């Protein structure tokens, strides 16, 4: 059965599906239609991968887009629901992952969700003015006066009361050089039985900033979303615009993009592996990973002129070809990599004191994977078969025939082992592509067209979703949802029953991005 038949059997009716430009299917619905299809999606455990709002889409006030993954199909299904007023029904009770999306939309557009269980603000903290909704087209980007914090505009944390219960507030300013985030623990002694994470301390307004930009220039916004996901986000954005423009880029550019994406995964995972060792106070085990990571950074710099590979990607291919010598050096370097990496992982896998800290710590239980759309290594370490490279192939991944790797325990040790395995897989992918690297141009000229598209990539942290709408040759709406936006919520569940001193380790093993969540 193809997806059309599957969907029509599911919904028991003829569907008015609109084919998107990147094998996504749009289905416009009214309120009763939406309720019906959402029930079907819920019964079949299809995952909500994003929910976002667009103003003036097809000249109709606000339109909500509910994007779903259909298990077993490359296509994504997106319900389009045009609102009549500034109100919409909340679906957070059936799809818990919708909670943050709905709050995000309320902040950005002022849309009220009826029946929502959590109506607190999300990315605009309480000190912002009441009627301030920056994503409205009527709002022009500029400075905004915030009110000083007071008791009236205080954020209300979930209160847990009982004998011996106390709260530990941590952050947003931390002792290390990390991004801001507030963690409110409710503990009895050392055992955590509730954690509430409050983020969004450094909202940059990237989505608003993108609006009105020329699509070619907006790549720089995409790569600034999160410094260590530069490649993933830049490529996701470029793919989106290329799909809209009906452009296929030169083979060499496609291959080099894949090499750089996998290099990003390698250095990101190396950083995590090192970080996990540091957080159990075993820096001797961390240093081999740090050394390898630094070497990869230097290769990145030789290849692209930037350790984080900024300013490298362009709509149509790459901004510049990589130097031949740097490629040669990388290929020589990678030959010795697996052995050295093997020695590094063997150190940590042979120390009982390290394994003892990793095992059973911070379990992400399978039952939260679907409702919260947990993605990336965090999900795979808990046994979820998910990888955007395999489920929704993009770039070269369709031909590469990757094998799914998973772990079952879902604890820190599972994430450690999974990431270690993924590093070696990425190295193999890079080597394979470099052995058959095409010659020629790395950039294809193109004409900007209008249109909208959903593009997804597997960033080191998991699935990143980009939705781009080009209107009159300019970016009209750019919506990004990174893997961290979903996975932060997994942490609130993973820490339960663990002790406070194990929290930093659990946090590190999940490698969540603050910037990637707060655009």
């Amino acid at each position, binding site marked *: 059965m193809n997806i059309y038949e599957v969907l029509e059997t599911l919904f028991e009716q003829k569907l008015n599906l609109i084919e998107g430009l990147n094998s996504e299917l749009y289905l416009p619905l009214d309120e009763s239609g939406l309720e019906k299809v959402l029930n079907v999606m819920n019964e079949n455990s299809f995952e909500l991968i994003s929910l976002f709002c667009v103003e003036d889409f097809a000249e109709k006030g606000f339109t909500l887009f509910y994007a779903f993954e259909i298990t077993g199909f490359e296509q994504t299904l997106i319900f389009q629901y045009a609102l009549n007023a500034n109100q919409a029904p909340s679906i957070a009770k059936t799809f818990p992952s919708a909670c943050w999306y709905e709050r995000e939309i309320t902040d950005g557009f002022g849309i009220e969700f009826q029946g929502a269980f959590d109506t607190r603000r999300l990315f605009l903290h309480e000190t912002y003015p009441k009627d301030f909704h920056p994503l409205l087209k009527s709002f022009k980007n500029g400075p905004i006066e915030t009110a000083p914090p007071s008791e009236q505009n205080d954020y209300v944390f979930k209160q847990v009361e009982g004998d011996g219960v106390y709260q530990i507030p941590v952050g947003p300013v931390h002792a290390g050089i990390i991004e801001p985030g507030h963690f409110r623990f409710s503990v009895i002694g050392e055992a955590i039985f509730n954690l509430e994470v409050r983020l969004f301390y450094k909202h940059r307004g990237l989505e608003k900033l993108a609006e009105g930009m020329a699509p070619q220039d907006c790549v720089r916004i995409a790569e600034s979303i999160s410094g260590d996901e530069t490649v993933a986000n830049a490529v996701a954005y470029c793919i989106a615009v290329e799909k809209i423009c009906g452009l296929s880029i030169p083979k060499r550019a496609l291959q080099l993009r894949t090499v750089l994406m996998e290099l990003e995964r390698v250095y990101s995972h190396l950083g995590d592996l090192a970080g996990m060792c540091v957080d*159990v106070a075993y820096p001797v085990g961390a240093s081999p990973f740090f050394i390898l990571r630094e070497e990869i950074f230097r290769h990145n710099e030789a290849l692209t002129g930037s350790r984080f590979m900024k300013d490298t990607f362009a709509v149509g291919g790459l901004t510049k070809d990589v130097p031949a010598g740097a490629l040669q050096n990388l290929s020589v370097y990678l030959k010795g990599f697996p052995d050295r990496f093997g020695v590094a992982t063997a150190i940590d896998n042979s120390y009982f004191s390290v394994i003892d800290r990793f095992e059973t710590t911070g379990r992400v239980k399978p039952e939260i994977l679907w409702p919260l759309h947990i993605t990336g290594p965090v999900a795979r370490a808990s046994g979820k078969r998910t990888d955007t490279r395999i489920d929704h192939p993009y770039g070269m991944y369709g031909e590469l025939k990757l094998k799914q790797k998973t772990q079952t325990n879902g604890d820190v040790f599972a994430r450690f082992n999974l990431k270690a395995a993924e590093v070696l897989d990425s190295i193999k992918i890079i080597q394979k592509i470099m052995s058959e690297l095409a010659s020629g141009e790395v950039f294809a000229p193109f004409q900007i067209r209008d249109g909208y598209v959903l593009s997804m990539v597997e960033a080191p942290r998991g699935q990143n979703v980009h939705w781009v709408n080009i209107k009159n040759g300019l970016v009209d709406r750019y919506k990004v949802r990174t893997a961290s936006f979903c996975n932060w919520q997994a942490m609130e569940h993973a820490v339960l029953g663990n002790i406070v001193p194990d929290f930093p380790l659990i946090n590190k093993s999940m490698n969540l991005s603050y910037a990637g969540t707060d655009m």
Partner: protein
Amino acid sequence: MDYLALIAYGILNMLFVLLISPLFISLIKIVKAHAQKRKGPPLLQTYRNLAKLLKKETVYSSNSSWIMRATPLVNVAAILVASLFVPMIIIPQPTDLVGNIILFLYLLAMAKFFMALSGLDAGSTFGGMGSSREMAISALIEPVVIVVFAAMAFAFKTINLPDMFRDALASNVLIDPVIILISISLFIIIIVESARVPVDNPETHLELTMIHEAMILEQSGKNLAMMELSSAMKQLLLMGVLINILVPWGLTADFTPQAILISLGAFLLKAVILAVIIGLFESSCAKSRLFRLPGLFAIALFLAIITLIIEVFA
């Protein structure tokens, strides 16, 4: 004359501990850094840090009381007095005035007690967390320390530390098995009391995992310098106990410059070796889970009890 020598001993021993102890903090850091293929700080870095802190302004939380102000002084004072009990290079003449092991332990306990109070005093979360963890660990390690020191007292038939060292020095036996058992216990006590891996991590920036560091998180300026200095001194004192019981060779009872120089050189050499061992030990394991720590303490307790049984019944 006796008293004059005693006073000279006291001043020299105190000054020695005060001036030399920061050296071993840096040294252990250097050893650990090399284990990680890093270079580590210069040997004199801890002195520079202390000098920098002494010049800085001291900031007090508006919630804090006199405890916050008194704690650094109490700590330095208690540890300095305790340093009179542990002869590092010269053993004073036998006298009842110095060396009582029980008083020594109580001085250390007093310093710790005030440190834990000051952790609570500023009203910050981490301070309180550190204090509660430190007290939980203390409740477990202190009985162990007492049993270990009791074992020592039985082994040397005295509760006076300088007398123990004199006995150890006079002993004809090169290595006494009982002393080895006690030394292992003492080594574990050094690790615990100087807040090292696997008990605590002196290098971490992660507030939620801290024990000792969390308690002094609210200290600043010269108060912080005093806290750092007193932990360095405490570490050296415990190292001194271990060294002068296990390998007292070179230790002298004579007040001649030559003997003192030899003793000084011998002590520094032994302390450097011990610091390297501590650094390597720390590098060889990850920090233990908080609730698994009693296992480590139990080893020390077990060995001390064996010693007691041997000494009492053999």
